[in-house]
């Protein structure tokens, strides 16, 4: 059943408690626009391609920054393309990684064709089956409030499928130059020297 929550409100709620120790990886398309609408940050890495890779990029970051809280925010289409990565995440089991899927049950950037979650597929059940210990499907404001607390305060890995409605919204773009976004992120996290080729962090 399609969701009733508004995606921009969901992302704003997820990001409201963020601190400088919160690192965000946003999946391509609407998720990246949502995260950008909540405020551009040098501690956001917004994808404008690389479909299917958002969660596993989050895993790579979480493994190398165990004292930071890594939050992946992406869509159902991106997550469906990278479902194997849930098994990899679960087996590595980083305590500092949360994956939140904004699930509107359709491919929003390409004409609104239904995804598998509009049919019989249950992403939270897949995450649980992959071995992720804390999973949920979120449909209400109350459930959203619970997982916002969980994402920022409880150990991961955790996975939340958040059922949202389909909306036609503006598209506030993050920087589209990936080299710039990458350098900006690394400088914020690792210092100025991280922009120089060959830097060993």
């Amino acid at each position, binding site marked *: 059943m399609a969701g009733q929550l508004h995606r921009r409100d969901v992302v704003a709620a997820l990001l409201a408690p963020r601190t400088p120790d919160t690192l965000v990886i946003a999946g391509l398309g609407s998720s990246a626009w949502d995260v950008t609408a909540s405020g551009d940050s040098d501690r956001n890495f917004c994808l404008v391609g*690389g479909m*299917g890779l958002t969660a596993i*990029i989050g895993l*790579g*970051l979480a*493994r190398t920054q165990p004292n930071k809280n890594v939050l992946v925010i992406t869509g159902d289409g991106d997550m469906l393309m990278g479902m194997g990565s849930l098994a*990899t995440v679960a087996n*590595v089991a980083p305590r500092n990684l949360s994956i939140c899927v904004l699930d509107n049950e359709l491919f929003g950037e390409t004409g609104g064709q239904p995804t598998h979650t509009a049919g019989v597929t249950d992403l939270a059940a897949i995450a649980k089956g992959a071995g992720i210990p804390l999973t949920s499907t979120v449909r209400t404001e109350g459930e959203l409030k619970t997982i916002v607390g969980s994402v920022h305060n409880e150990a991961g890995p955790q996975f939340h499928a958040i059922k949202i409605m389909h909306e036609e919204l503006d598209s506030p773009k993050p920087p589209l130059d*990936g080299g710039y976004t990458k350098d900006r992120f690394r400088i914020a996290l690792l210092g100025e020297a991280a922009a120089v080729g060959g830097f*060993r962090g």
Partner: protein
Amino acid sequence: MTKTDWPAQIFDVLRAQGITQVCHVPDAGHDRLITLCNAQNDMAVTTLTTEEEGVGLLAGAWLGGERGALLMQSSGVGNTINALALPAACQMPLLTIVSMRGEWGEGNPWQYPAGQGAPKALEAMGVAVFRANNAEDVAETVEAASKIAFSSNKQTAVLLSQRLIGAKSF
């Protein structure tokens, strides 16, 4: 003449290059190297479900300040193609070491298409491809590819010839 222990030499190069993240879809040709990496406490080794995950994982690791290497078989190269846009578009380093099938004396005809196509597919996506045909060349080839990757934010691949690894018969 003693046989060159090239997997151990690759391991030494990875250590010397400061590589701390190793990920793989395993291949018999990489078995000894994976075992060496697993035994190293300050190396994080991740088993992947598909090779494209490795491209994403190492991009995330680079964002976090660590160097990595992706180990895979030539049949896995095809799985990485669209993922290779990520390090290309973001000017991130990528070092992958590919054990080749589908070439020298291959006994499994199903390996030929991906084996023959692997170097072309990598080059089509902008990856600089290096090849080691002899055991004596392996270490310096991996070192050269690693230096280019991490000093130039470039994507590089080292192909380990099937002649080096030994043909597998079916």
